[in-house]
C-alpha cells in the first residue's frame, strides 16, 4: 500500500468513525444515566464532527491533487456464510464526497447553533444523542458502497428523525407526528430492504461500484434486467417516502414539530434529499426502464406542482418553507428522472444550504420583519408584501385555495383508503379474539367487556 492509499484510508476512517464514536459515547452516557454538562456535550459533539469534516476535506484534497476518481474503503471484513454475504463497505467518488461534505458541513453549523438554541432545555443530552445517531446515519448512508451499508445508515436516519420530531414529548402532537413520520419511513425501509434483496438476486452482490461501472447499457444486457427494473421500482418507492414525494408528503409539515435545528438540518436539508441522493446513486437502474424513468419525472413534477400550490396557502413560516422545499425536491427528482447527474447534485447542494439558512432564521422571522419595518418604514415595506386577492377570484381559484389549505388532502386520502380499513380489519379480529378466548375460558364475555370499560 503506497502513501496516498494509506492517507486515503486514514481520512476515510476519520470521516466514518468519528461520528460513530460520538454516537457510541453519547449512547453509553445515556444508557448509564450519566448526566453530562452542556459544555462537555458541546465540546465532544463539535470536536467529533470537526474531525469527520477534516477527514472528508482531506479526502477531497487528495482526490483533487492526485487525480483519484474513486476509492473503496472496507473497515470490516465481509461477512460470508455460504450464499449469504453482508458487505459493509464505503465508496468515495464525486457524488458521495459532495453529499457527505455537504452533510458534515451543515451538521457542523447546526452543532454550533444547537448548543445555544437548546441551552438549558431539559432534553439537551437526549437531543445530542439523537443528533449523533443522525450524523452517523447520514455519513454511513452517503458514503456507503453497498446497498447493505446504505440500509444501515438509512434506518439510523429514520429512527433518529422520528424521535427528534417527537422531541418535545410531554405534548401529544409531536408524538403523533413522530409516529406518522416513522410509519412512512418504515414503508421506505421495507421497500429498500426488498430492493437490496432483488439487487443481490440479479447481480450476485450489492456493490454500487459494479452498478455504476456497468451503467444502464451494461445492466440492460444482464439476463436479470427485469428483476433490476423491479429493484428500481422499489428504490423509487423508498426514495419517494424519504423525500416526501406525492402522495407521501404529509409527514414533512408534521416533522416541523421538532426543534428548529432539526427541522433545518434534517427535513429541510439532508433527510429530504436522501431519497434524491439514492436515486442519483442508483440512476443506472432507474434509467434501465424508460417507463420507470418517466414515472420518476412525473412524480417529481407532480410533487413540485402540488407543493408549489400548497405552499401559497400555508399560514406559518415552517409549513411554507416545508412545502417550498418540497417544490424544489420535486424538480430535483424530475432532473434525475431525465438522466441528468451533475445538475441535480448542484441543485441539492445549493438548495440544502439555502434551506438550512432559511429554517434557522425562521424562529426570528418576526424580529427580522420588525427590524425591516423599522428600517424601511411601513409604507415602503407594503410594496414588497403580497396582496390578498382571494376574495376577488372565482370558484376555480377558491377550489384550488381549498385544496391547498387542506394540503392536497393527501393524509386524509391515505387514511381513508389504506390505514383505516387496515386497522378496522384488525380491530374486528381483536373483538373476535376476545369473544373466542372468553368462550374457551368459560368466562362471560360481557364481564370482560365491563372490566375493560372500567379500566
Amino acid at each position, binding site marked *: 500500500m503506497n502513501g496516498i492509499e494509506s492517507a486515503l484510508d486514514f481520512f476515510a476512517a476519520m470521516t466514518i468513525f468519528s461520528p460513530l464514536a460520538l454516537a457510541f459515547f453519547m449512547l453509553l452516557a445515556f444508557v448509564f444515566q450519566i448526566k453530562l454538562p452542556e459544555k462537555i456535550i458541546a465540546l465532544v459533539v463539535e470536536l467529533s464532527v470537526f474531525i469527520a469534516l477534516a477527514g472528508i476535506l482531506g479526502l477531497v484534497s487528495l482526490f483533487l491533487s492526485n487525480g483519484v476518481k474513486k476509492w473503496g474503503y472496507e473497515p470490516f471484513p465481509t461477512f460470508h456464510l455460504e450464499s449469504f454475504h453482508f458487505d459493509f463497505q464505503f465508496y468515495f467518488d464525486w457524488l458521495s464526497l459532495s453529499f457527505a461534505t455537504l452533510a458534515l458541513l451543515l451538521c457542523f453549523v447546526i452543532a454550533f447553533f444547537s448548543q445555544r438554541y437548546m441551552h438549558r432545555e431539559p432534553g439537551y443530552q437526549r437531543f445530542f444523542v439523537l443528533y449523533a445517531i443522525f450524523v452517523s446515519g447520514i455519513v454511513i448512508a452517503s458514503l456507503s458502497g453497498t446497498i447493505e451499508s446504505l440500509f444501515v445508515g438509512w434506518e439510523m436516519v429514520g429512527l433518529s428523525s422520528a424521535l427528534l420530531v417527537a422531541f418535545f414529548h410531554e405534548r401529544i402532537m409531536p*408524538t403523533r407526528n413522530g409516529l406518522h413520520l416513522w410509519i412512512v419511513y418504515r414503508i421506505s425501509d421495507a421497500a429498500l430492504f426488498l430492493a437490496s434483496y432483488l439487487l443481490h438476486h440479479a447481480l450476485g452482490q450489492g456493490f454500487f461500484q459494479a452498478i455504476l461501472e456497468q451503467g444502464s447499457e451494461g445492466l440492460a444486457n444482464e439476463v436479470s434486467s427485469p428483476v433490476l427494473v423491479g429493484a428500481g421500482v422499489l428504490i423509487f418507492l423508498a426514495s419517494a417516502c424519504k423525500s416526501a414525494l406525492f402522495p407521501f408528503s404529509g409527514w414533512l409539515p408534521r416533522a416541523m414539530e421538532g426543534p428548529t435545528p432539526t427541522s433545518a438540518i434534517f427535513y429541510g436539508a439532508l433527510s429530504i434529499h436522501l431519497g434524491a441522493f439514492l436515486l442519483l446513486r442508483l440512476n443506472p437502474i432507474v434509467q434501465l426502464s424508460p417507463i420507470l424513468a418517466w414515472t420518476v419525472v412525473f412524480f417529481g413534477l407532480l410533487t413540485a406542482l402540488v407543493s408549489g400550490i400548497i405552499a401559497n396557502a400555508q399560514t406559518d413560516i415552517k409549513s411554507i418553507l416545508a412545502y417550498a422545499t418540497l417544490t424544489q425536491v420535486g424538480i430535483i427528482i424530475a432532473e434525475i428522472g431525465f438522466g441528468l447527474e451533475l445538475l441535480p447534485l448542484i441543485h441539492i447542494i445549493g438548495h440544502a444550504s439555502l434551506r438550512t439558512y432559511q429554517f434557522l432564521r425562521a424562529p426570528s422571522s418576526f424580529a427580522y420583519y420588525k427590524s425591516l419595518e423599522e428600517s424601511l418604514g411601513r409604507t415602503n415595506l407594503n410594496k414588497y408584501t403580497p396582496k390578498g386577492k382571494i376574495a376577488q377570484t372565482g370558484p376555480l381559484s377558491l377550489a384550488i385555495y381549498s385544496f391547498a389549505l387542506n394540503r392536497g388532502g393527501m393524509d386524509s386520502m391515505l387514511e381513508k383508503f389504506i390505514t383505516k380499513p387496515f386497522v378496522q380489519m384488525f380491530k374486528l379480529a381483536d373483538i373476535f379474539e376476545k369473544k373466542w*378466548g372468553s368462550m374457551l*375460558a368459560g368466562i362471560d364475555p360481557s364481564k370482560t367487556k365491563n372490566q375493560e370499560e372500567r379500566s
Partner: protein
Amino acid sequence: MNYFFFLEASMLICLLGALISSLAKSQEKIRFITIYSSFFSTLCAFASYLGFYFSYQGYITLSEFNAPLPALSSLLYFVVLLCTPRTKFIGADKPFPSNLLLLSQTLSLLICSSSNNSTLFLLLALEPLIPLVDLIRRGERIQIFLIHWVPTWLIALTLAFANSLPMELTGILLSLMVVIRMGIFPGHTWIVYLTEKCSFTIALLFITPMAPILIILKNNQLLHDTHASIYLSWFAIASIFYFAGLTLVQRSLRNFFTYLCLALSGMVVLGVCSHEALQLTAAFSLRNSLWVALIGMAIVVRALEARHGRLSLFQNHGFYESTPMLGIAFLVCGLGCVGFPGTSAFISFEMLADEIIPSSPFFGMVIVFSEALISISLLMVYFKLFCGKKVEWSDIFKVRLREMIALWIIIFLIFGFRFLPLTDIVTTHHNLEKSGTQHPH
C-alpha cells in the same frame, strides 16, 4: 472436574432452592433463598460453559446445538428475579411463586442441555405444569389451558414413548404440538389467557424461550420428509401477519406484549421449517436474540405495572420524565425485537429474509411487511407509555439499582450478544451442520 459437574450442580441448586423456599415461612427468607439460588445456579451454568469452552475441540457442543444456552437461560432467570420488586415477595396479596420459578429454571436448564429426543418431549410436556399450578394457586379457571394441553400432553407422551409410529403421523403430531406450544395461529388463545391471569413472571419465562424450537431443529429431517414443514410454515406465516396486525390495535399493554411474542415466535418457526442449514442458523440465532430482547421488554412491562398497575393503551401516560431508564430500555429492547442495525438480531433477520425470499417471495414480503408493522406498533406503544403527558415526579417512580443492573445486562446482551464466543452465527451454522449430519432423524 468436567463441565457436566457444574451443569448438574446448577440444576441441583435450583431444585434445592425450590424445596427450601417451599418450606421456609418468612417471606424475606423466601426472597433471599430464591435470588441466591438463582444466582449460584447461574454461576455454575457459566462455569460449565467456560469449562466447555476451554476444553472446546472442533464443533462438538454441550448439546448438539449450542453450549451457551444453559448459561444464557440461567442468566435470564437470574436477571428477572434480580429486578423483581421486593413488594412482590413481601406483603403482596397473592404469594410470589418463588419455588415454581426455581423449578422452572431447573426445567429450562434441562431442556437447554438435553440431547435426547424422548427426554426433550417429556420435558416439554412437564414445563406447562408450572403455569398450570400457578393458575390453580391463584384460583383462576384452567378450562382453556386444559382444552389445549390435554391433547398436547397425549401427543408429547406418544412421541416420547411410541417407537413404531408411521412417519406421516409423527410429522403431523409433532406439528400439532408445536402449533399449540408456540401459540401459532389458531392454537394461541391459551397463551393470551395465560399472560393475563397467571403470574407475569412465570408467563414471560414460559413464553419467551420458545423452547419447542429445539425439538423442531432435532426433528427437522422428519418434518421435511413428511411435508409437515410446509403446513407448519403456512400456519406460521398466517400467525406472523395476524399477530403483527393485532399488536397495532391492542388496548392493554400485557396483550400487546403477548401478541408481540406470538408474532416473533411465528417468525422463528417459519425459519426452522426449512431444511437449509443457512435458514436454520438464521432462525436459531434469531430465536436467541429475541429471547433476550423479549425478556428485556417484559422486565420493563413488569416494572411499569409494579408502579402503576395494569396499563391501558387508550391514553398516553408520559412516564419518560419520571423513569427515563425504563423508556430507554423499552426502546432498545423493541429495536432488538425488530432487528434494528447494531442489535444482535440484525444479521439473523437479514439472513432469514434473504433465505426465505428465493423459496417463497410471498413469505418474504409478508415477513418484511410484518416486521414493519411490529416496529410501527412498538414505537406507537413507546409513545403511549412514555410520552404525551407531563407526570409529576414521585419517589415510587424511581428505578432501583437492581432494576438498573438487570436492564444494563439485557442492553449489553442486545448489542454485544453476537460477540460472545459460540453465539456467533458462523459457529451456530457449523454446529447445526454437524448435528444435521450426525442426527438425521
